[in-house]
């Protein structure tokens, strides 16, 4: 379980997140909405432990461990994985090597790459000249190798063409143990009980909702969390009335 209590985060001198509470139980997936600059990426990066996002108050707990001040790689080893919005290029590091790093050497890189149409990119330097859509598939490939328990997705579908959206949507869904095409004979209830993976997905377009059935949705507005409810409803409300209106009527 991920449990965030009264979290406050600053970047430099600027307070970006205020009094954030969030709880993601094993098997749950949450959707995070919010306008540009509202602090969504900040929240994910803080959960991951990037040092420029400074926790000034509050607490983050994962699997019962207080990770508020834990270094990034220890959080990763505890089971947190992230699909980045704008990952850096590392020259001379082949995508194949990166996937091996993610899988601690114990994964079939070829087989995983085939799943996201990424075989042709394995010999390229990681993220070097990757297009927007290619970056998304590369990030998913790394997450598949990583086998994390809490998966954070920062706009996994933005800039992705229509055909690849299905690929990406279905891959995320299966990473979160929500792919109905697998073990089709299981009942909904069985599925829910067996599921352990947790997800937190940032989306602007809402396309991902066509592929991933999420449990909860929330809106981050001006650094404050609000509107905890059904993600489809929230999305509909945002589309019709805009963020400001949507936040006002539900809080």
């Amino acid at each position, binding site marked *: 379980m991920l449990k965030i209590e009264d979290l406050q985060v600053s970047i430099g001198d600027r307070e970006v997140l205020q009094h954030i509470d969030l709880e993601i139980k094993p098997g749950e997936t949450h959707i995070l909405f919010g306008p540009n600059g509202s602090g969504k990426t900040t929240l994910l990066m803080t959960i*991951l432990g*990037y*040092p420029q996002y400074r926790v000034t108050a509050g607490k983050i707990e994962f699997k019962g461990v207080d990770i508020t001040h834990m*270094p*990034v*790689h220890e959080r*990763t*080893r505890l089971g947190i*994985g*992230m699909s*980045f919005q704008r*990952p*850096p290029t*590392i*020259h*001379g*590091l082949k995508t194949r090597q*990166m996937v091996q*790093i*993610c899988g*601690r050497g114990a994964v079939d890189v070829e087989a995983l790459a085939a799943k996201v149409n990424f075989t042709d990119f394995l010999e390229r*330097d990681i993220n070097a000249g990757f297009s927007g859509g290619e970056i998304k598939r590369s990030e998913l490939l*790394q997450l598949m190798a*990583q086998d994390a328990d809490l998966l954070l997705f920062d706009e996994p579908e933005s800039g992705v063409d229509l055909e690849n959206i299905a690929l990406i949507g279905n891959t995320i869904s299966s990473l979160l143990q929500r792919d109905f095409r697998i073990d089709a004979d299981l009942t909904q209830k069985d599925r829910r009980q067996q599921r352990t993976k947790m997800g937190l997905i940032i989306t602007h377009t809402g396309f991902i909702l066509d592929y991933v059935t999420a449990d909860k949705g929330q809106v981050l507005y001006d650094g404050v969390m609000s509107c905890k409810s059904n993600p489809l409803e929230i999305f509909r409300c945002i589309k019709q009335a805009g963020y400001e209106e949507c936040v006002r009527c539900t809080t």
Partner: protein
Amino acid sequence: MYDMMNEKAAQAKDKKAALGPDIDLSSFTAEPTDHGYMEDLTKLPMIDRQRILESGVDATEEGRSGTYVQEDASVLHAHSLQDGLEVLPIKRALKEKDWIREYYWKLVAVDADKYTAAAQLNLQDGYVIRALPGAKVTLPVQACLYIHKEGLGQYVHNLIIAEEDSELHVITGCATSPTLKRGLHVGISEFFVKKNAMLSFTMIHNWAEEMSVRPRSVGVVEEGGLFLNNYICMKPVRSLQMYPTIHLAGKGAVSRFYSLLVGSPGSELDVGGRILLKAPETRAEIIARAISNGGRIINRGDLIGEVPGVKAHLECRGLMLRGGLIHAIPELQAKVDGVEMSHEAAVGKIAQEEILYLMSRGLTEDEATATIVRGFLSVDIPGLPPALKAEIDRAVEMSEKDYL
């Protein structure tokens, strides 16, 4: 011929070099001891075997087409394992082979500076490696210049000749015994790549902290020839200065330089590369990676386009790991219209963002740093046989403990 050489050399014996700190040659006075010839190199003491192995020279000679090993001033071993390949000490060649006159001091000027002069006046030995016309010597020839004697000045002269339509790969290691502290190495190398021949020359230097090193290398590539020149120097060295120069003299000749340099505290490296594009359709590329770990590195590159239609690129990337200095000096000279020459130089430190990205995939900060440095140093060298690529990777890996 030698009298004339000696005369010219004598006149230049105090002539300071254009670049690099001046070295007092008279302070390297140790008398070389004679080590005698060795039929079986595996009889070398293990500690020395290990040391030369780090420079890519394997005493078992497995996977090699020929071997030359010199310790201090004496030739331990020189022989070829393949038809069409000649490996012999230069002193013997000077006595026995008439053709040597076409090559000896033909590219490097004996009176260029005090180091070239001293190499003529104090010549100890050196290797001649020659692939006969049409010979495809696909396994590497290995050559090692090893210094054991404390305070020795080693003066060698090497000739590498790839005759027409031949293929030749040379891996040469220069190293010092683990106990040696101070010494001097002066090495003249002249490269001849004839019509449609291919030569790859991979040099791995493993020096000692108080070593001074002054290689002097010039090569010529004829029509359709290819010369790959790889240089790796990642261990500490007091002072190293070299500026190998290649003349692309025939139509379509190609040369590529790759160098990997690490400047450790107390080390001063001044390493350049110059390629003159003198014939139509010639191509040149110089790629350098320099890491400063507290030492000083000057990395020069000079491309000179003398006829229209040539193409050349120069790239120098520097990584400041732990202080020190990296000075990249890329130069392009176009002497006519219609040449296509470019350069890029970038010096910086490791981006924190890259370290964090790797940490988010499970690596510790140190592992992430090592991974980025390894990536920085991994350059693809098209045309290099896998065995030599493996030697370069091994040298990189082995030096990691010195700077990571």
